[in-house]
């Protein structure tokens, strides 16, 4: 089909826009239509009309339309474009379309489409006429149109007999015209221009999601008369623009010469301005539309996935995909090109997330101002931790989702969870030190049984380090794999329960003190060579790196080996040396972390439709190979499988393709197969395999604790530790110095007796502490001696002390034998590790605390944002701490 090119001819565009009506509802959006359309038509990018060729007419009386039509019809020689936006009416039989002007009454003072507009246009001298009608019943214009004799193309905003629910949009023009300007301004991919037919086609796509007031699809219609070719309406193109043909440049030149010789001189002058200046001028953006704040989406995830998802969310925000109108969005809520969603990514430990969803009612209540958010007998509120009420949640695996669901009440929760399926995979791996690679075990195809054997005391003597299954999704899925796919066969059908003996055996291998960490990235960070680990303190593990085998994910192991940022460890300048790396072994048939995207709908949200649509858009983009999948792949994740179900290989740009990642890009991705019941049974098996434990929390209650906001942070950490308590894991809370016996250095106040199972009691005691600090120095060693003595005698298997300390004020005047007695106590009898949270100015970097951690086989954690979770991870490991390796 030939295309009519009007460039350089004498063209006219008449934009008739009526927004203010004396007797009808005003249409404020129409005002913007005129401006937007004028801007686009005269934009150098569309390259068709010059500024003086576009007329705007805002008629009050019908004669004004008549006059304007008369003028343009007489002047135009090339293309004549007539556009009307305003109210329209038809007779009771659907015929006789009347365009309404400012002063129009119901039945008179109107502009007849057939008798006035078409008659004038039929006498125009232009080569081609294009008419765009945006009004109610625009679709009814087609009929009369066929009697005209000129080559005309007619675009009608909707199908016949439809009204349009539009015109109230506060900014940026009406929906239809916004779409028109968008197409004309941007052009169409792989096309060098936008023709009339192109425009019609694009509009149908653009308005596909809109509805008419009759609640059926909104479908623009077109008609042509006396012409078979197509008319070019814009030369904008997203691609490279072809040069303007010589004949058109000549045509324009002559036009200019004829009409504007002064301007010609100016243009000649501009030619001598340096070329770069010219480019800058041409690129100046037009007046940007004012965009309203985008819809705020809250994305909750696991700490391990947070950096990658943060990057993905940002890429989405800045992408064109984020400018498409959302369902439920009010017409004109956003101007053309405005971002629709903005995404805040945050993370929380798995148990906190579970608790949040289980207490969704309280979560919602706090957000609505009901109830108290301060720590009380119910513990810290969910709004504080996990944090904002998520609109979408991306846990590490479907097992996490199953667990959260299990904890939620069957009915009545204000949060509804919808699992939309995985967005990224990463297989689970066991990292084996490079120098201790296993003999006769194939890294990409080894069963757990072979791996356990190869790393045991008789062979490589490696400590297996696993993130806590309670705190981390990686830890949970690794446990599922250990229990249910131990022999390397696929996880059995639903109902298959883990063998308790097998769970016991597996757990006995995961028994080294400190073998559980809050998350896989923190675990790896603690193994980084040469890190002086400012947060980890005394016994932090880089010395253990060569004798440990971390149970982590392929992605985090690749990050570790390549020296990328890992947990709180910053990026290194280069990958680790070969001897410091771990080789990824892929336990056979263990499901990969699948990162399902869960949409969370909160009851009572006024913008639920828009929110749902925004989440779905983002989810769709995340799974798009050209969108989020690229970002996630660059971050080291495997993509979601295509339609053929094939396991996706790492894409170009993936760090997994770097041989120094020590991962195998061909290793299989096993989809998650266990059912919720199996996950529950695995956790049950895990709990049973854990020996019961007893914890004594010993808190410094001297007034120095109140300085610099230390107290709330210390209370928060202690409260986090109490959350680990349960039927098998009891605790007590002691504070020192004792107010009543402040002269007795070894006196402690037993705020909560040992053996308590309910966190609430301890939390209430902590709450009281903030008002009851003791004006006396804290003699740590003496108080600790009392505590150690009690715990050594307490019986049971897994006893530990959590010491929360500002400074040991007991140094001056300390009896000579105190230290000796404490040392003796710590070394004798059953092991009682002391886990210290150091709030003091030097953190763990003191001789005394290092000595304490070393002697008691405990750890020290310096105060900091991650301290509560680190401490929780260490406490989780106490459950099995007494069983010695080998």
């Amino acid at each position, binding site marked *: 089909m030939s295309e009519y090119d009007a460039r350089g001819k004498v063209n006219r565009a008449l934009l008739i826009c009526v927004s203010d009506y004396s007797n*009808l*509802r005003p249409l404020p959006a129409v005002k913007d239509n005129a401006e937007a359309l004028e801007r686009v038509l005269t934009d150098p990018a569309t390259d068709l009309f010059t500024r003086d060729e576009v007329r705007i007419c805002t008629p009050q009386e019908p004669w004004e339309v008549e006059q304007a039509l008369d003028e343009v019809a007489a002047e135009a020689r090339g293309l004549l474009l007539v556009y009307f936006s305003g109210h329209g009416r038809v007779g009771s039989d659907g015929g006789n379309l009347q365009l309404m002007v400012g002063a129009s009454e119901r039945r008179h003072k109107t502009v007849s489409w057939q008798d006035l507009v078409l008659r004038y246009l039929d006498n125009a001298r232009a080569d081609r006429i294009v008419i765009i009608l945006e009004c*109610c019943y625009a679709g009814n214009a087609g009929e009369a149109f066929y009697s005209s004799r000129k080559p005309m193309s007619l675009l009608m905003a909707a199908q016949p007999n439809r*009204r349009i*629910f539009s015109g*109230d949009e506060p900014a940026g023009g009406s929906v239809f015209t916004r779409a028109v300007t968008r197409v004309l301004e941007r052009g169409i991919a792989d096309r060098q221009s936008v023709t009339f037919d192109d425009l019609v086609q694009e509009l149908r796509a653009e308005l596909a999601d809109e509805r008419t007031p009759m609640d059926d699809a909104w479908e623009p219609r077109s008609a042509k008369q006396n012409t078979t070719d197509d008319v070019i309406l814009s030369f904008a193109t997203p691609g490279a623009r072809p040069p303007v043909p010589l004949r058109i440049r000549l045509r324009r030149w002559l036009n200019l010469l004829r009409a504007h010789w002064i301007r010609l001189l100016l243009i000649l002058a501009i030619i001598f301005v340096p070329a770069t200046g010219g480019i800058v001028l041409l690129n100046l*953006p037009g007046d*940007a539309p*004012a*965009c*309203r*704040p*985008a*819809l*705020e*989406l*809250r994305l909750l995830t696991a700490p391990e996935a947070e950096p990658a998802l943060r990057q993905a969310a*940002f890429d989405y*925000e*800045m*992408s*064109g995909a*984020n*400018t498409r109108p959302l369902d439920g969005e009010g017409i004109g809520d956003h101007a053309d*090109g*405005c*971002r629709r969603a*903005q995404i*805040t990514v*945050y993370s929380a430990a798995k148990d906190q997330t579970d608790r949040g969803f289980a207490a969704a009612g309280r979560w*919602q209540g*706090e*957000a*609505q*101002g*009901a109830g*108290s*958010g*301060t720590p009380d007998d119910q513990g810290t509120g969910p*709004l*504080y*931790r996990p*944090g*904002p*009420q998520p609109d979408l949640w991306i846990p590490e695996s479907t097992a996490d989702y199953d667990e959260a669901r299990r904890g939620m009440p069957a009915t009545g929760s204000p949060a509804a969870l919808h699992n939309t399926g995985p967005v990224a995979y990463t297989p689970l791996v066991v990292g084996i030190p490079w120098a201790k690679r296993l003999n006769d075990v194939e890294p990409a195809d080894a069963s757990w049984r072979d791996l356990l054997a190869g790393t045991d005391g008789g062979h490589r003597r490696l400590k297996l380090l696993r993130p806590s299954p309670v705190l981390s999704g990686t830890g949970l899925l690794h446990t599922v794999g250990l229990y249910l796919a131990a022999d390397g066969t696929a996880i059995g059908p639903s109902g298959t329960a883990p063998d308790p003996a097998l769970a016991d055996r597996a757990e006995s291998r995961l028994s080294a003190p400190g073998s559980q960490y809050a998350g896989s990235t923190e675990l790896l960070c603690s193994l980084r060579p040469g890190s002086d680990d*400012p947060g980890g303190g005394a016994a932090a593990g880089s010395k253990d790196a060569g004798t440990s085998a971390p149970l982590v994910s392929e992605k985090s192991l690749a990050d570790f080996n390549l020296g990328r940022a890992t947990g709180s460890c910053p990026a290194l300048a280069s990958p680790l040396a070969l001897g410091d790396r771990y080789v990824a072994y892929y336990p056979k048939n263990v499901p990969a972390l699948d990162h399902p995207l869960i949409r969370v709908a*909160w009851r009572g949200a*006024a*913008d*639920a439709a828009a*929110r749902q649509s925004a989440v779905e858009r983002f989810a769709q983009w995340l799974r798009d190979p050209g969108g989020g999948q690229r970002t996630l792949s660059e971050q080291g994740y495997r993509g979601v499988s295509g339609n053929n179900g094939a396991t996706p290989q790492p894409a170009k740009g993936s760090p997994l393709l770097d041989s120094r990642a020590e991962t195998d890009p061909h290793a299989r991705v096993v989809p998650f197969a266990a059912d919720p019941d199996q996950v529950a049974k695995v956790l049950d098996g895990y709990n049973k395999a854990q020996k019961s434990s007893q914890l004594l929390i010993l808190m410094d209650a001297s007034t120095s604790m*109140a*300085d*610099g*906001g230390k*107290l709330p*942070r210390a209370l928060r950490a202690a409260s986090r530790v109490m959350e680990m308590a349960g039927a098998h894991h009891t605790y007590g809370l002691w504070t020192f110095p004792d107010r009543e016996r402040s002269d007795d250095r070894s006196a402690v106040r037993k705020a909560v007796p040992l053996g308590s199972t309910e966190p609430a009691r301890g939390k209430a005691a902590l709450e009281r502490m903030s*008002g009851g600090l003791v004006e006396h120095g804290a003699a740590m060693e003496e108080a600790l001696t009392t505590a150690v003595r009690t715990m050594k005698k307490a019986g049971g298997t897994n006893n530990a002390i959590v010491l929360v300390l500002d400074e040991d004020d007991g140094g001056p005047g300390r009896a000579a034998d105190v230290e000796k007695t404490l040392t003796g106590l710590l070394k004798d009898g059953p092991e009682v590790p002391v886990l210290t949270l150091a709030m003091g*100015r030097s953190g763990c970097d003191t001789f005394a605390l290092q000595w304490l951690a070393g002697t008691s086989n405990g750890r020290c954690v310096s105060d*900091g944002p991650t301290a509560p979770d680190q401490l929780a991870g260490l406490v989780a490991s106490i459950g099995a701490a007494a069983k010695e390796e080998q």
Partner: protein
Amino acid sequence: MTAPRTTLTAALACLTLVAASGCTAGSGPGPEKGAIVLATGSDLSSSGVRQDLIRDFEKRTGRTVRIVQLPDTADGQRSQLLAAGQSGNGGYDVLNIDVAWTAEFAEAGVIRPWGTSLDGDFLDSVVKTAEYDGKVWGVPFNTDAGLLYYRKDILADYGHHYRPPANWGELESWAKQVTGAYNRKAARSGKGQNHGKKPPTMYGMVAQLRPYEGLTVNTLEAAWYAGGDPDATSFTKGAQVGSLQQGVGDLKLRLDDGIMPHEVMTMDETESRRWFADGRALFMRNWPVEYASVAEKLTPGKKFDVAQLPARPSDGRRMSVLGGQNLAISAQSTRPEGARELIEALTGRRSERCLLERGFAATRDSAYREGPGAPTCPLSPGDARREQGATRPPAPRPGQEPPYTRTLYAALRAAQPRPRSAHYQTFSKVVQIRVSQYLSSPGGTAIADRLAKEADEALSGVVR
């Protein structure tokens, strides 16, 4: 388009109501019921002067205030307040919001206009943080400005006794000269000591360049120093062109020249303070809030001191980014009168004096005044517990101000708000991602140019 709409009438009716009563359900005639709900980050719920001021308000008025503890990160607080506001779900009366959020919250309809102008006692620079689109949206509660911390003792040892550096050029050349000489000397004398450990290297400067809001703050200050205009909302137009690129270029140069350690790219306020207090940096840009922690390890006035940030050579301005919080009335408040009363009490002259005495940067000029007629803090000294977010120790005697107060006052008056745009958050994300990329790249201005373009795009709200 011809359908008459009843919603319009309803909206109009509602508008009329707004003028009268706030157009919210429940705020009908008669006294307001229930506690005033104040939503805030964690720092208000613990003990401290702001808490004491709230209790004082309760005692005087007989009303109760319930504090709802929001998420523990600023990003989380903003996200929750904004999203809940958009969903029509927030049931709070007073919001304690970061100064950078005013425009967005106003535009999104999360907060309501304050309605009256702020009295002339509030610092002019600080008032700007509460203004948007020609209206006042909140009342400044506490403010903040960046300061230059410097090692007075070491600089004096190497011949710079008289004053802190006047501009960044001077700072950089002093840093190179002094750290070079200092490290050589330490290496010579340090052998055999320190348990055979190498003494830590002294660097010239530390700041907050981890990709978080602190990086945006440091970037803006660098861009303003390089000729940027704090009131402009575009980095690609007029006199602004190039200021952002120049600013981040300066940061990168300080990194590449070894004036700043590589680790600075992982530092926040606390971590950079730790370096400075540990004697591993000669200069530090940080908030006054870290003063007390530094003073725990280095003697104030002798070993270290604070000054305003270096002056821009072209006009001598020493522009820091303004921090702090404003109190605003939630758009969905059902107790707007109580909310207003509470905000007025918390930001009154005497309250602001209390805040200053307890280590916060006050938002009122009168708080910094001395002598007769100056406001006094009504709280009893016994309430003086010390808290996070406030410097410490508190004033040696009640009624006195912390030692850096004069410097802070000058810094506050010269300080400027961050770009007041409804899309500030996106802008900040762009800065964080692109500037970190640029700083860790081998160089080249392409990323910096892209940054300026994307920053504009972010501020406009549009994807181009």
